[in-house]
């Protein structure tokens, strides 16, 4: 077992640079999730670790070994693809044992390892079936099984659950988490689904346009985002942002119809600031009349109220309890001042 270290890793396609010098340290046994909007380079970065994409500059280490120029086969990694990439002409058992067979392992050993993996993944009754005769979730389990049998140092997952329906996705997510606990190997997991990222990760890496925006534990990113992008990306529904201006008393926020006290070092008076508030930190004040309720989504335990501010800005508020707002009502908003996040309007960096 070993960790993965990226050192100023750059990827170029011709003249176009898509990964701009990424530094990252993933320690042994860690579950690291790359997350970001599509086109942010998360899959490219994963494929560079796998060796399927050439690294233009920089260095990739797996454990103590420099693998930057090695072939994928020499890196000791196993990869699970979004499309499963099962060999359609082989049975489940052959699929899982194929890599070992091709690298000259004895039959007995292969059978033993396949049996072990199929037990972990509950695939015993499907061993003789072809992938065609399996459901999506079973196929994905076979793909994971194929990765397990080789006992790799690092597991790579490239959006493994994206092709599954919602219910199976939750089930497989739990399964992958369990697998990580059982095997304890280093895992790198790419997803655009932040729920997967939050629930699975020891460490989340938020990427945007080929740059790392922030690295940290899930709740750390949630509670203490470094910039507006991370604040907006992590959390569902997303954080509300309203524009404000620095004044003598704090930050004037017309979208909240109040002046917010800020315990952070604000820029000079008159400059613009984005104020971020999570939906669960906003409280609806039925006595007020500054915001209009456009729509409420009642999900049971919680409701989401979609509000329009006097400035036309949209806000989402989470409501719990028995009293829920109704569509069309005029309401006010309150919140605890220390819950507000402040971001520089131009650099989008967090003001602390």
């Amino acid at each position, binding site marked *: 077992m070993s960790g993965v270290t990226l050192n100023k890793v750059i990827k170029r396609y011709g003249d176009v640079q898509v990964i701009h010098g990424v530094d990252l340290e993933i320690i042994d046994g860690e579950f690291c999730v790359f997350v970001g909007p599509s086109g942010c380079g998360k899959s490219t970065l994963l494929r560079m670790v796998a060796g399927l994409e050439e690294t233009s500059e920089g260095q990739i280490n797996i454990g103590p070994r420099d693998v930057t120029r090695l072939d994928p086969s020499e890196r000791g990694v196993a990869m699970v693809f979004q499309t499963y990439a099962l060999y359609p002409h082989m049975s489940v058992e052959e699929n899982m044992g194929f890599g070992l067979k*091709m690298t000259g392992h004895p039959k007995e050993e292969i059978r033993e390892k396949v049996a072990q993996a199929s037990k972990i993944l509950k695939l015993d009754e499907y061993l003789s079936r072809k992938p065609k005769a399996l459901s999506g979730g079973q196929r994905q389990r076979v793909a994971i099984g194929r990765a397990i049998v080789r006992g790799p140092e690092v597991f790579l997952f490239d959006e493994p659950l994206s092709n599954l329906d919602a219910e199976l996705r939750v089930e497989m997510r739990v399964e992958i988490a369990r697998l990580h606990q059982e095997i304890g190997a280093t895992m790198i997991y790419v997803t655009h689904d932040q729920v997967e990222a939050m629930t699975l990760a020891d460490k989340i890496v938020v990427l945007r346009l080929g740059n790392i925006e922030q690295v940290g534990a899930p709740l750390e990113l949630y509670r203490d985002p470094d910039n507006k992008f991370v604040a907006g990306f992590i959390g569902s529904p997303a954080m509300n942002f309203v524009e404000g201006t620095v004044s003598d008393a704090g930050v004037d926020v017309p979208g909240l119809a109040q002046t917010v006290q800020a315990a952070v070092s604000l820029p000079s008076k008159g400059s613009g600031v984005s104020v971020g508030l999570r939906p669960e930190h906003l409280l609806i004040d039925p006595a007020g009349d500054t915001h209009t309720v456009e729509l409420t989504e009642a999900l049971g335990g919680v409701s989401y109220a979609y509000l329009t501010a006097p400035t036309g800005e949209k806000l989402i508020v989470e409501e719990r309890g028995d009293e829920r707002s109704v569509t069309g009502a005029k309401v006010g908003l309150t919140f605890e001042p220390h819950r507000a996040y402040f971001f520089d309007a131009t650099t989008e960096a967090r003001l602390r």
Partner: protein
Amino acid sequence: MFPAPIEKRSDAAQAMYKSFLPIALFLWLAPLIAVAIFSIKPDADFTTGNYWGLPSTFEGAANYGKVFFESDMPRYLWNSVLITVPTVIGAVALSCMTGFALGVYRFKGNLLIFFMFVAGNFVPFQILMVPVRDLTEQIGLYNTKMGLVLFHVAFQTGFCTLFMRNFIRALPFELIEAARVEGIAEWRIFWYVVLPLMKPAIAALSVLIFTFIWNDYFWAVVLTQGPESQPVTAGITSFNAQYRAAFHLMSAGAIVAALPPVAMFFAMQKHFIAGLTLGAVK
């Protein structure tokens, strides 16, 4: 839906369709029907000028008997087999490999090489006729089955490569990447992962090439002469003596020669059509 099904057209159109279709069918098949009837006529019918009438006597058994037992036809048929089968194997095997290389690997000149394979198909045979005949003469392959096989393989590999490369391109590339990550050597990926998935393409292409080569007349006439090397398409003409043509035997021979590709077509119809459309769509 376009065109509208014939049942939904006017009565007049339906009547037209029903009367003209059999006529068109008859015209279309007329040469074949003529050959079939010729093959059961006695020799005398041709000397008395009874070309298009009914046979004066039924001589089918005698004519086909002569073709099989008193002529070189069996030899020509066997030559055809010895030319067609190695060509199919050679062209398909080569194109599996070229198709894999051109479909999977990115290297400088990939597209250029691919275009050369494709462009070869556009050179008319007639232009190549004289140089190829001279070439076979000089390397001592003129009038041998080997020469014919080699040239067929060379000419067919272009088309086959186009076909195979496009087929491999359409396979999910993740399969190859998955195998690479698993540490499988490239030639093993070709043999154990890609080749099994190419079975439908191999079947379709084999049927297609078999028909092409069996029916080839041009190169058979240009590169071979005589029963020791000529395939059946060229061999049929040996029924024509210097002063007279044995039309009844030629017809019987032609029917016999046409049977293997026709049988192949009906037995492997699915693959044949797959072959034509695979090449066209992708």
